[in-house]
C-alpha cells in the first residue's frame, strides 16, 4: 500500500461520494457542489495514476490544471443558471422534481 494507492483510492471514494451527492441532493446548489467533488476526486485519481511511472510526469499535471480551470468556468455558468431558475420559480429545485414526495 503505497502513498499513490492511498490517494488513488481516496480519489475513487470521492468520485463515489460526489456521484451520490449529484443524484441525491435536491437543492440545486448542493448538486453543483457535489459535481465539483466528483471532478476533484477524478483529478486526484488521475494525478496518482500519473505518478506511477517512477519519475514525476508533468503532462497529467498540466491536464489537471486545465481541468480545474474549466471546472470553475462550468461551475460559474451552472451557478448562474441555478440563480436564474430560483428567481423564476421561487425554489432552487427543478420543476419536474417537485411533486416527487
Amino acid at each position, binding site marked *: 500500500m503505497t502513498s499513490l494507492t*492511498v490517494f488513488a483510492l481516496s*480519489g475513487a471514494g470521492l468520485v463515489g461520494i460526489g456521484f451520490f451527492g449529484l443524484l441525491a441532493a435536491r437543492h440545486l446548489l448542493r448538486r453543483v457542489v457535489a459535481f465539483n*467533488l466528483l471532478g476533484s476526486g477524478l483529478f486526484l*485519481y488521475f494525478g496518482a495514476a500519473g505518478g506511477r511511472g517512477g519519475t514525476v510526469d508533468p503532462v497529467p499535471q*498540466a491536464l*489537471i490544471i486545465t481541468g480545474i480551470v474549466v471546472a470553475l468556468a462550468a461551475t460559474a455558468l451552472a451557478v448562474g443558471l441555478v440563480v436564474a431558475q430560483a428567481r423564476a420559480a421561487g425554489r432552487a429545485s427543478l420543476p419536474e422534481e417537485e411533486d416527487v414526495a
Partner: protein
Amino acid sequence: MNLAIDLALCALILGIAVAVVAGRGVFRAIVFFIVYGLLVAVGWVRLGAVDVALAEAAIGAGLTGVLLLAAHGRLMRAGAGSDISGPPIWAAALSGAALAGLLAWAWFALPLPERPGPELAAAMPRAGVGNPVTAVLLNFRAWDTLLESIILLAALIGLWMLTHDAHWRAPLGLRQHANPEGVMAGFGRVLPPVGLLVGIWLVWTGADNPGGAFQGGTVLAAVGLVAAMAGLFRPPRIGARGWHLALVAGPAVFLLAGLAGALLAGGFLTLPEAAAKPMILGIEIALAVSIAVTLALLVLGPPEPEKTP
C-alpha cells in the same frame, strides 16, 4: 511516516466530503467544501504536484468558494436558500459505491505505465522554460491551453446571456455596499497591493518554479474582486470596450503566436527554439491578464441592479 501522514490526510478528506454531501444546510455544505478544497491542495503537495496544489487552492477552493457563497446569498434573497430535504435515495448511494469500487478495481488492474518517455526528458532543455508543467502547458501542449482560454470566454458569454434585457446596460454583479470603517474596507486597503505583488510574482516565476499564468491570474482576479467588494471601483458594464480588449488579449496573443510558429517553425503553435522563452513569457503575460479579468467577471456574475422601490 509518510504513509501515515497520507492516510490521515485522505481520511480527513473523505470525512469532510461525506459531511459536504450528507450534512444538512446549504451554507454548511459550501463551507465544508472550501475546507475540503484546501485539504486537497495539501494532498497535491504530498503528491509532488505543487503547480496543481496552487491551482486547486486558488481556483478550486478559493474562487469556487466565493462563487458558491455569492450564489447562496442571491438565493437567500430570492427565498430559495434553505435546504430541501427528502427521503434518502438508496439507488444513488449504491451506484456511487459501485462507481468507487470500479475505479478502485481499475487502479489495481491497470498495467503500470512506461516512464514518461525519453522524448519529454530530451525535449525539456529545448522548451525554453525550466518548469516542466509550464513547458507542457505553453509549449508542448499549447493547443489545449489555447482552447481552454477560449472556453473561459465562452462561459462568460453564456453567463452574460442570463441577463434580463432591461439590465443589459447596468454594471456587472450586485451593487456592493461596504461600510467605510468596516472590515471589508480595511481589506480593500491592505490586500490589493499585496495581492498584486503575489500575483505578478507567481506569473513571472512560473517559468522556472511552480507558478504560472493560471495561478497568478487567479490571484489577480481575487485582487479585483476584493477591490470591487470593498467599493474601490465600480464593476464594468457588459459593453465596455476596454474590458473586451483585456478579455480577448490572451487568446488573441496566443493565436498570433501560433500563427507566427506556423510561419517560422513549420507548424501551428510550434514555437521556434531560439525564441521560445520570450514567446512563452509574452503569451503568459497576456494570458494572465485575460484569465484575471475573465475569472473576476465570471465570479461577479451578470448585471443585477437593485430594483427601485
